């Protein structure tokens, strides 16, 4: 295991990668118009967080972080199922997936 997650790679690199992935997710969420892309951006953010969890778990030799990752993955899977279902329902109803046009709640 340790060979895969090498000691030579410093902690900050993992964290930096996590931050970059998270930022990409945020930016994607903000600028993309397609609902599916927005959804994928959310997944990206979740996984960026997962990466930092695993990193810290390895660093401090604590298993808690890894357990957390399992929880996040599980919730993400459930969320993906529900989210995709909603997306399909929205598409059927509105024949569009552009987030800007799904604004029925607007005043």
């Amino acid at each position, binding site marked *: 295991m340790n060979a895969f997650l090498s000691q030579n790679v410093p902690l900050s690199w993992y964290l930096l990668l996590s931050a970059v992935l998270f930022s990409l997710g945020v930016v994607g*969420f903000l600028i993309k118009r397609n609902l599916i892309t927005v959804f994928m951006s959310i997944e990206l953010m979740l996984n960026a967080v997962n990466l930092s969890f695993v990193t810290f778990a390895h660093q401090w030799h604590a298993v808690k972080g890894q357990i957390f990752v399992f929880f996040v993955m599980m919730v993400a899977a459930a969320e993906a199922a529900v989210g995709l279902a909603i997306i399909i329902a929205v598409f059927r109803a509105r024949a569009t997936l552009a*987030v*800007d046009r799904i*604004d029925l*709640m*607007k*005043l």
Partner: protein
Amino acid sequence: MNGPLHLWLIPLLPFAGFLINGVLGRRLPKWLVTTVALLAPLAAFAVVLYAAAGVYIFTHIQCAPGCPACGPCPIFHPYVETFGHWLNIGPLHIDFSFALDQLSLVMLLIVTGVGFLIHIYSVGYMHDEDGYARYFSYLNLFLFFMTVLVLAGNALVMFVGWEGVGLASYLLIGFYFKKNSAADAGKKAFIVNRIGDFGFLIGMFLLLANFGTLTFTEIATKLGQDPGWNGGVVTVIALCLLLGATGKSAQLPLYIWLPDAMEGPTPVSALIHAATMVTAGVYMIARTHVLFDHSPFALGVVAVVGAATALFAATMALVQNDIKRVLAYSTISQLGYMFLGCGVAAYSAGIFHLVTHAFFKALLFLAAGSVIHAIGGEQDLRKMGGLWKTLPVTFAVTTAGVLAIAGIFPFAGFFSKDAILYAAYVQGTSGRILWFVGLVTALLTSFYMFRLWYLAFLGKSRGENEHHHATPWSMLVPIVILGLLSICGGWIGIERFAAFLAPSIGARTAEAGSPSLELILSIAAVGVALLGWFVAYLFYKQGSERPAKLAADFPGGYKLLANKYYVDEFYGAALVQPLLLTSRYILGGFVDKGVLGGAAWLLGGTAKFSGALLQQWQSGNLRSYAAWLAAGAAAVLLFVVVPWPAVLASLTAFHFGVAGH
């Protein structure tokens, strides 16, 4: 005292009737409504009779050891039933208590007895009216409040009844609420009464401030203990209470509501606006007589108000053409007599007149009601006439009532009016002026009552409507009973009546009179009554063109009387119009619309403007929300992660470093 008297039943029975008929009346069959409405006052009357028997025994047990002649007891402790504390604030303790003594017993007998008769009469009178159940529920509500007023052991409980009868009066005056004039008359009665109630309230506050209690017996005890209570604050309290009494009893200057109150159904006029409610002011003065006894000035004011009202109202009654309005002004005038009696400290005479007046005035109103009922709702005396043939029973009892109110021996009114006039006469010079005013009023009373009698019952029929309804039994029986009472009601005599009342309102002080003087005064009173009859005979029996000729000779005087001295117009111009104008332009236009409205607009505008600004945020665009969320998260992160103290320190160091160079 053996066992409780169950005083609480007396008000509660009519209240139960009010609830049943008020809530369920619409759905109940008519006979059941009638049964409930009649049973309530009848049962209350029965309880009053039971209590009367109790009081009778009670006084005898009290009197036997002390008084050898079994005369009036020096101190009478009324029979009190307390139903728990009402107010218990600091030194202030007010109980919810009922007190029964001779005075309240007499009033209760009148209220429930005459009230029951008028309930019976109403069954016939209101038979075809809409709102039959509503009418009876109001009538029972009135009895509830009136008995509370009469039984009250302290001023606050009395005030509850006082306000309640005002409410019942308002509801019943405006019974035909679809008629504008009836609704207006109800409001007028209520508002004018409020002015009087204001006086009553201030009087109660002053009583609390100075005596620390509102219980009538305690006030009497405190006044008796300290002879220093004279004039001053007692006068002010008494005058405030008098203002309350003038409102309720339609005395100068607050009498204006009573003539308009005739818009209500006629039995209501008989019960509330003749026999019972309007006498509440007299009752209240008799109830608080200790205060008036300690203030000769207030007592004098009562007498002057009473005498002035008696004369003033009698002159207005001379030219009225509406049969009910003649009776209304006559009621005001007779109430003036009662005030006059109280004002010369002859409370028992005032109460005596209250009792006989309740009999004959209720009778006259009910008789007028059966006349109106018989000729199809016509109230104008000029369109009546010759009714003695078609309404023989009504004619007979009205004759008894007219003779009674005119004060002709041996009818009821003679005894009570005579007692008041005699009590006034023996009060010295000022008393003789009051006596003279009373005598002139007696003349006028006799004249206008016989005028009514001639116009309505004798002569030829002047109405176009020749079809007469038959008077049902339910209307005849009460007026016959009241007719008998109007004849015999005074035979008990003022001496026995005063002796009976003495424990609760004090015996009359020794008088300078003599039997011969009493006889002369009685003859004078009967003389003027007969004179009034004779003048009415000349005017309305012999030559019917004489009144018109007299009116033509004195057009100013006639117009003044016909327009009721323009008092309503004067109040309208002096009080109502300024109040309305102030309300409309200063309070309504400036204060309400300008100041308050402006402030409201300012507040609203601010909210609207800031709302419009903040609304920009709520774009409905999902991604803009997300952007704000991200920006917020970034700001929090920036705040948490960046070591601000260190950054600030380095910044200042850099600043000073630059400055140092």
